[in-house]
């Protein structure tokens, strides 16, 4: 032995625990530590604080294993939607496609948001339904509660077999519980009442999609641990009404965060919370039956409000937003989604009153136009994130003011803003030189001129997405390549872009990690090989619908970018099974390949069946 083993002789066990805690639960490092020597194995097991697992074939047995191995765990996250990681095959079924949760239809009037990924395979849906009996049961939860008495955070997402029985044992055994997330679990009132009785340190409660709960349960919980509760989330719980919120208003006086998504909540409930919870910091409402009366109360009593988000066809008018602007001086983040009745007056009131505004999103509010945004640009110098989605009425001059007034802008997101054009983008580029993220989708008036200005002025840009902007071409990307070192690039559907533009970006962005060039008909093998040369850190690539790329370009890319983890390449007529095989063999970290089923040879299927996803033909 060359030197002395100091770490084991000088440091007591508690210090080793402290050091291991700094590994942040990084599995590879923790696993390495457990294999160093027997002492480290014992200590590593003792120092594990967090366990995160997805769906597994026998979760109850799995939990038993975890409880024996790691005795000091404080945080457990079980998410039945997440598939098992491919490399780990102990006879566990591999699930691809949509989560088993799709059997529960999400209530959403917003047609734009769809829960199911489009490339879903029907097979995996029926397969996953068969697997439901294998999700965590009450017995498993009892084992968990028994084993981890010092549990602080418990997250059970879509564990559909868990009931009040399991939750009751958690309540009785884990009195230090601070965070409880029961998203999508069919827990009943007795479970929640038990939590209220036993867990007096509970701060964070998430009851989204807990369809088995009624007012009884939540009222009992509010009575029991109302004093410690800081955050509550409720979504689509048909039997939770204003009665629960009145209990929250009277018992949870320190409440800071409230997130409500329910058509069964009316003004009375929100009013009660506004009056009772004056420390309210974050309020998110997606309640179609709540009107001005409730929001006016918020605008009167909740002067500490920092984040306000209003979603989906709310009936709020300018009156309530003006009240918010008057009283909530600390407002930092505002989201207005599908609020049809709000006009420029609302934004003007917010602009005047809330000078600290840092984040603004306006989504589909068809009565908000240029004037409102101009006011924001003039009065909110701290604005750092701006998102304008489906804002057909907002014109260039709005962004002129933002460019002039908001020097700290870091992120700009524009979707379907048909009246915003090159001049506006030029102004933003010249005024907001700290821009880090620019996302533009389907804004047909924006072309090369605007993006060239961005390339020339925004040196800190790392995230650029230009989807379906059919006037953007190679000149734009050349300017970007010269001026910015990107980490994320998405130019899907900008069909004027060809090899020249991509080559310029590849040369200028050695740290590129994500690339989406789908639906680019003019892109060829040259570009792919330059990306291979210039971007060795690439992890995700989307090449679907690129008609000109062939196995040659793909091979070049795969051989140089060995860190690729996901590759989508459907509808590429010149990519064959040889190309697919090359990707699978050259990219050692590959986790997902999306391709047509018939392009996968038997040999490739044998080597890497678990990571392949197939395009569904029936769509």
């Amino acid at each position, binding site marked *: 032995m060359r030197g002395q083993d100091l770490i084991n002789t000088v440091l007591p066990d508690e210090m080793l625990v402290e050091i291991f805690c700094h590994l942040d639960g990084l599995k590879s490092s923790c696993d390495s530590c457990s*294999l160093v020597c027997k002492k480290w194995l014992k200590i590593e097991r003792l120092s594990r604080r967090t366990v995160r697992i997805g769906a597994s074939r026998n979760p109850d047995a799995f939990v038993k294993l975890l409880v024996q191995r790691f005795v000091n765990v404080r945080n457990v996250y079980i998410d039945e939607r997440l598939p098992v990681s491919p490399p780990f095959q102990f006879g566990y079924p591999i699930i691809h496609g949509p989560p088993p949760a799709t059997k529960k239809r999400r209530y959403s009037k917003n047609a734009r948001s769809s829960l199911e990924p489009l490339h879903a395979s029907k097979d995996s849906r029926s397969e996953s339904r068969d697997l439901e009996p294998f999700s965590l049961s009450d017995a498993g939860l009892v084992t968990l509660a028994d084993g981890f008495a010092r549990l602080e955070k418990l997250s059970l997402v879509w564990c559909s077999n868990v009931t009040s029985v399991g939750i009751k044992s958690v309540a009785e055994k884990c009195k230090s519980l601070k965070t409880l997330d029961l998203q999508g679990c069919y827990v009943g009132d007795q479970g929640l009442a038990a939590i209220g009785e036993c867990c007096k340190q509970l701060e964070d409660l998430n009851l989204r999609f807990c369809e088995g709960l009624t007012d009884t349960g939540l009222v009992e919980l509010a009575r029991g641990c109302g004093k410690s509760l800081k955050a509550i989330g409720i979504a689509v719980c048909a039997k939770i009404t204003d009665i629960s919120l009145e209990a929250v208003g009277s018992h949870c006086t320190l409440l800071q965060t409230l997130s409500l998504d329910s058509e069964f909540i009316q003004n009375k409930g929100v009013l009660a919370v506004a009056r009772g919870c004056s420390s309210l910091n974050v309020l998110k409402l997606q309640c179609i039956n709540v009107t001005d009366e409730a929001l006016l109360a918020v605008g009167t009593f909740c002067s500490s409000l920092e984040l306000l988000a209003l979603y989906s066809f709310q009936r709020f008018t300018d009156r309530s937003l003006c009240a918010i602007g008057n009283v909530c001086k600390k407002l930092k983040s505002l989201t207005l989604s599908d609020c049809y009745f709000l006009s420029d007056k609302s934004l003007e009131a917010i602009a005047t009153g809330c000078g600290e505004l840092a984040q603004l999103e306006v989504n589909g509010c068809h009565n908000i136009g240029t004037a409102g945004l101009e006011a924001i640009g003039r009065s909110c110098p701290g604005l750092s994130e701006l998102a304008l989605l489906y804002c057909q009425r907002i014109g260039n001059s709005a962004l002129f003011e933002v460019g002039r007034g908001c020097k700290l802008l870091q992120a700009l997101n524009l979707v379907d803003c048909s009246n915003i054009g090159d001049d506006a983008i030029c102004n933003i580029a010249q005024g907001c030189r700290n821009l880090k993220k620019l996302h533009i989708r389907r804004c047909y008036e924006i072309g090369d001129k605007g993006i060239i200005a961005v390339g020339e002025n925004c040196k800190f840009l790392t995230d650029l997405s230009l989807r379906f902007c059919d006037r953007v071409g190679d000149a734009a990307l050349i300017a970007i390549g010269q001026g910015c070192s990107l980490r994320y690039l998405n130019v899907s559907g900008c069909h004027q872009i060809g090899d020249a533009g991509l080559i310029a970006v590849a040369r200028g962005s050695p740290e590129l990690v994500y690339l989406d060039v789908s639906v680019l008909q003019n892109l060829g093998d040259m570009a792919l090989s330059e990306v291979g040369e210039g971007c060795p850190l690439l992890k995700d690539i989307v090449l679907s619908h690129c008609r000109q790329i062939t196995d040659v370009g793909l091979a070049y890319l795969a051989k140089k970018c060995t860190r690729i983890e996901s590759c989508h390449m459907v509808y590429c007529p010149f990519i064959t099974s040889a190309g697919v095989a090359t990707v699978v063999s050259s990219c050692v970290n590959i986790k997902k390949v999306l391709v047509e089923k018939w392009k996968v040879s038997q040999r490739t299927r044998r080597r890497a069946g678990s990571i392949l996803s197939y395009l569904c033909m029936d769509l």
Partner: protein
Amino acid sequence: MASAKVFVLRTCDGETFEIDESVAYVSETIKNMIEDGFGHDLIPLPNVSSKILLKVIEYCRKHVSNFESSKKTSNGDEKDKDNDSWKKEKEAVPEVEKDAEEKARVEELKEWETTFIDIDQQVLFDLLQAANYLNIKGLLVMAAEKAASMIRGKTPEQIRETFNIKNDFTPEEYEDIRKKDAMNDFTPEEYEEIRKKIADNHFTPEEYEQIRKENAWAIE
């Protein structure tokens, strides 16, 4: 500073060190001893050698002077005073939100930190113990983080080499543990990525239709 009160610390090897009140108070242990009335005579530190106490005092002095200068350039409030401010500096803050002076201060601090903790293993582990005994959270975090950085990303063999640890597993034991460790367990980053991908609908229904129409070609 209000008072120029001075305290005397004595190490296990008999050396004495004089420090100001504000510097002494960086250590919760010493602070408690003083508040309990033991500050009039020498404060004995039987678990700390003079070599290590020198390093500790260097840290404490830097901590105090850093806090003073941060009060001048930004609106530092009482919250900054606790040792967690070291950790907060590491979190990403947009460059432009700090003005030039503040930026320079942060840069200088980072450089000082890197040099300060660039020490051999013996000193590092002694420092870690001292920080624990003296209850100086920021120093404890810094030293533990340095040790963790020597472990992160390495294989078991590499870790053993770094610290000269003997492998006391039999080959069968080793294989057994290795297999058991390969379980379904995500890192925080993987977890977030997978969750995002589940939520991310790559094309909107309209886009998908548009592409389908444009690219109608026979598969079979």
